[in-house]
């Protein structure tokens, strides 16, 4: 009986989202509105200072993909250094926290072990793994296992790596997330969450793309259009791309743009 219900769930998933392993066939910016490809492993990297941005981006991606329920696994180091999760804040990102299960694990060894179980659970929409520091155990072998489990069960796995350097992995995509200045509201109040996203690597697709996006909670999508014409980008709209630009070619321009943004702010 278990098997048949799992099968039904799987068929449903395929019916609603297309092929279960669509990863590579999608347009470059499909993630803006549809989230990251389901039933795959994705990596999200960020510096320690941008931890909250990376976590926020991950949550937003889950919402864009409508891949609830979520299980969020954190190592004790994450909790110690990054602070604890605040439900009210997550609700304000748009997440339904009543379906969120929070798992606290001692270190990355037990993180991988617990993740292996969760990755096989058909009932789960997304598994979010959060680790801080180098975490050398999360290597090619470990990620390959997770990827296989994700493809078999349909669970999307986001591997949130804070303060880590990218190492070879089997993930379908790798992202670097940093904080980005928001569009201020009236009376100079900070605006909606904004992120500076770079697609570092992608299985069978173009990599090195960069976006500057705002999270639109009400529509459940990332909005990249807003940064084109706002006062925020005064005069250097070319540097705040509406669509992805290859970073390799435009790195200098992008950096320049960031500098001018700082000046104008």
């Amino acid at each position, binding site marked *: *009986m*278990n098997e048949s*219900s*799992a099968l*039904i*769930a799987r068929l*449903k998933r395929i019916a609603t989202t297309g092929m279960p392993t669509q990863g590579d066939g999608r347009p470059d910016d499909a993630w803006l509105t549809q989230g990251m490809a389901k039933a795959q492993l994705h990596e999200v990297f960020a510096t320690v*200072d*941008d*931890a*909250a*941005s990376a*976590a*926020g981006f991950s*949550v937003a991606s889950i919402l864009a993909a409508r891949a609830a*329920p979520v299980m969020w696994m954190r190592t004790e180091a994450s909790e110690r250094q*990054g*602070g*604890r*999760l*605040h*439900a*009210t*804040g*997550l*609700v*304000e*990102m*748009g997440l339904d*926290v*009543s*379906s*969120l*299960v*929070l*798992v*606290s*694990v001692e270190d990355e060894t037990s993180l991988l072990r*617990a993740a292996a*179980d969760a990755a096989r*659970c058909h*009932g*789960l929409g997304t598994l979010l793994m959060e680790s801080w520091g180098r975490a050398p155990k999360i290597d090619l072998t470990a990620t390959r296992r997770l990827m296989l489990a994700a493809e078999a069960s349909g669970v999307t796995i986001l591997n949130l790596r804070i303060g880590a350097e990218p190492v070879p992995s089997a993930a379908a995509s790798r992202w670097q997330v940093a*904080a*980005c*200045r*928001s569009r*201020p*509201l009236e009376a*100079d*109040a*900070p*605006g909606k*969450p904004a*992120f500076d996203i770079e697609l570092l690597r992608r299985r069978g697709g173009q990599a090195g793309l960069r976006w500057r996006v705002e*999270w639109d*909670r*009400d529509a459940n999508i990332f909005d990249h259009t807003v940064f084109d014409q706002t006062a925020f980008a005064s005069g250097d709209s070319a540097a705040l791309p509406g669509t992805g630009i290859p970073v390799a070619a435009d790195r200098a321009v992008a950096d320049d743009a960031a500098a001018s943004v*700082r000046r104008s*702010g």
Partner: protein
Amino acid sequence: MRPHLFVGRAETPIAFVESVSGGVRLKALDREAVRAGLEPGLTLADARARVPELEVYEHDAHADHEWLERLADGCQRYTPSVALDEPDGLILDIAGCVHEFEGERRLAADLEERLARRGLLVRHAFGDTPDTARALARYAGAPAPDEKRAVKRLPVAALGLDVDATTALSRAGLKTVGDVMARPLATIAARFGEDAAMMIRRLDGSVKGPIVARRTVPRIGVERRFAEPIARTEYALEILAELATEAVAQLADRHEGGRRWEARLFRADGLVQRLRIETSQATRDVTLLMRLLRERIDSLADPLDPGFGYDLVRLDVALAERLDASQLKLEGGEARKGEVAQLVDQLGTRLGRVRVRRFSARDSHIPEQAELLLPAAEAPAPTPWIAPETSEPPLRPIYLFDPPQPIQSIMAEVPDGPPHRFRWRRTVHDVAHSEGPERIAGEWWRRQDIPTRDYYRIEDRRGRRFWIFRHGLYSEMEAPRWYLHGIFA
């Protein structure tokens, strides 16, 4: 009874009252109140006049009954046959049950100690029949050499007759049960009624009143004994799987599923190894149970050691709940929920239940106290969270520091604004945008001296958004400190 009222309390007399025709009267009293000269039946006005400091509570017979039932449940550790003697008595049939306690006195001492821990004052007595035990426990005065004589010394009230009959007996000069027993039974029956005669015969042991034991559903427990102890854990697990199948069949007959299970492996040398598992939903799924048992074994600090082998393997369903067959046929969303619940159980069994949690909203405006993380296996029905306002940015951070982290304000703006520039974790942040203050006062009804917090949402020049607050107003203190409480996405 409200047990917590009585534990560790100073000498305030307590009374429970009941509204009857003609006013409010005392129903039950604690020791202090009795010592102060009060007695049940007195009107509350009278009692108040005599003992002004009397603390009064509404008498709740239903709660008393439930409490007694719970105590009776607890007493089933001594004997399966426990009867209620309303409103405040329990009768235990301990015939044949005392061997575990090396005698009835030890059993009574154990029971009294357990009840004393709950703040209960107990009087106990042993008797050959339930009626003598009851009468002795309730009315015994001076000690007597044996049970027969103790019964004879009881006051006539111990017969449990109505007030008129008791008064009549006293007027007739019959003060004790012995006095009454000395008279011919026929006379007693003719003068004071058939009940009186019956009670006498019960107390002298010629008629035995039955114990009306509470009907309890026995817990499901299955076991296997082995003449030749089994020395392999793997084999013991196979046995457990068989036992689980049997237990599940019994549960199915009762339309129940188990939530708490206990497997016990009795080693030939007397050691008992216990494996307890718990699921968040009632279940009859043997595969799941075995998986949880294996998880439990894996997580043991000391691995299972069969030693010379197990000669008895037992599986008990410690807690069962209703589970109809129809509930098993889950579809779609429900099936997914069930799978997540299984995962929660599995991880909880291995990592510890407190490591697998869900958020639960709490009624507090202090941010760090507004929510609670509860073990997911036992979290109550999800509480509704307040939906965010459309087109507003998040007003609360996603990461919260508890305790808040001190920051150093390098350049304050105006007295009521956020700092222009501050240092946190050795990095200097220049504030570009800010909003506030949002004033969150301390919970002054708990403590007076908690300073007010003024919160600001700020964004620095690199786009990082923080939630900071000034601890205290400038009017409250000279140099209030600044803290960083959380980080926004």
